[in-house]
């Protein structure tokens, strides 16, 4: 293992300490492993919390900020936070108008977050709702779409639901919009090399020097095929085809697209993927709004990319373009 760290056991806590120290105007850590807005919960505003394992920055903690999330519980690398930490995040996000739990569909996270909701209700009388992201199209067939994993679509969900809460929507309204956003997102990933979890010390999977894997998940979950690496245009073509097979796009549709690095893939290569995606969508007559290209949802130092497409209507587009501010992203 070749990593910049002191002790693997301190990896997450030292990362959080550094992040808060670098951006004190945005982040605070009032409780160990719970990141909240530096200014605290906004009175009368619906709170939005998320949570999950470390190793995905800017997801999850990075998106705490104005027009985005209110608080986030964070676990060890690729491991769920405890229910108690999640309950603390709910408490810190509560401005008296209830709290939406908005996160990716992973078994451990769901169990703990449900429990956290019960805790917050029992102890602080906070009403909570849940919306899960299930945007990874290869993780389960369309008939079992509710079993799919949540990946980079979370970025759109945080942004759009965050804007809905910021403009004063009540809990039911913010929940409805989050649900609608989650339903409109589709993602797919591909990987070239694995990453190493500090406390495990060895790579999450093995792959040949000249190979790629299509459909791989954000923690290295197996994809749909593994073969010799293809040219960028063919990779982008297949990814978009698979997304459109799940959610057809037609002339006149308005979408936003996120071409995301899994960590080690440079911006240069993301733009090469975006170039082909843009050509293909132009040819179909699909309008791209606010394209995002960069590092939004990573898997440590994994090499690879994900593409997310969200189909927009006027409501979602307005909220996507609303102002937002965190240390990793400004709109």
């Amino acid at each position, binding site marked *: 293992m070749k990593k910049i760290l002191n002790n693997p056991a301190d990896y997450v806590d030292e990362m959080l300490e550094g992040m808060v120290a670098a951006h004190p105007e945005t982040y605070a850590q009032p409780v160990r492993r719970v990141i909240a807005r530096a200014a605290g919960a906004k009175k009368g505003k619906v709170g939005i919390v998320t949570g999950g394992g470390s190793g995905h920055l800017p997801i999850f903690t990075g998106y705490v900020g104005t027009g985005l999330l209110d608080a986030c519980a964070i676990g060890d690398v690729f491991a769920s936070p405890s229910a108690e930490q999640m309950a603390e995040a709910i408490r810190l996000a509560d401005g008296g108008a209830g709290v939406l739990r908005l996160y990716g569909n992973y078994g451990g996270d769901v*169990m703990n977050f449900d429990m956290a909701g019960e805790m917050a209700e029992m102890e602080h009388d906070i009403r909570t709702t849940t919306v899960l992201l299930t945007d990874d199209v290869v993780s389960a067939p369309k008939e079992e779409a509710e079993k799919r994993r949540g990946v980079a679509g979370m970025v759109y969900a945080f942004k759009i639901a965050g804007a809905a809460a910021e403009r004063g929507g009540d809990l039911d309204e913010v929940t409805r919009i989050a649900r609608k956003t989650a339903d409109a997102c589709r993602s797919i990933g591909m990987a070239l090399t694995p990453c190493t979890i500090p406390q495990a010390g060895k790579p999450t999977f093995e792959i040949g020097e000249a190979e790629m894997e299509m459909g791989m998940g954000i923690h290295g979950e197996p994809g749909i095929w593994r073969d010799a690496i293809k040219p960028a245009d063919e990779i982008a073509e297949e990814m978009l085809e698979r997304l459109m097979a799940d959610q057809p796009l037609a002339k006149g549709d308005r979408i936003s697209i996120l071409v995301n690095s899994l960590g080690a893939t440079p911006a240069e290569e993301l733009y090469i993927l975006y170039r082909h995606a843009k050509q293909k969508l132009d040819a179909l007559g699909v309008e791209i709004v606010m394209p995002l290209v960069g590092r939004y949802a990573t898997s440590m130092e994994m090499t690879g990319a994900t593409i997310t497409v969200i189909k927009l209507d006027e409501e979602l587009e307005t909220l996507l373009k609303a102002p937002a501010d965190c240390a990793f992203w400004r709109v």
Partner: protein
Amino acid sequence: MIDSSAIAKALSGIAAHTATASEELCSADGALGDGDLGITVSKGFAEAAETELPDDVGMALFAAAKAFQRVSSSSYGTLLATGFMAAAKLEKGKTEIAPDDIPVLVAAARDAMMARGKGNLGDKTVLDSLDAIAEALEGATPETMVDTAITAAGDAVEQFRNQPNRLGRARMFGEKSIGLADPGQLAFLRIVEGLKHG
């Protein structure tokens, strides 16, 4: 009378008894899973036993659930904490648990754990233990409840021993799990036995 201090005493008894049984439970779990169940259970109850409990018995059960989950966030730990929490919700605002409530609380715990763990009765899990206890406690007099529960939990272990596990990691062992006591059911038997040590 089951007030907050009686709950504290029961938790201490369970903590002591499951600590003694820790090795047995780890080796039962090691045959079908990752072998840490004894630690999960004894650590969880030790933490709950050390927690200061409020007079409100609902909030006392809640504090125990939180403490348990804090140190023991494995799926078995989360399930047990879920059970405590279900009972806590029903008792919130009271300073004593009425004996008549006990079968109801056990059944509520069973139902909440089934929902959270997405398990069914007959899968050879701790859910079957709770179900057997809830049923056995119906109509039992307060004095006989602990013994009745222990008998029911022990019977559940024996009744399921010769069936395969159908849920969780143990399910992967299929036929090999036949003849082995389910570690979760065995752990629950030791937990209920702990009530006698309080």
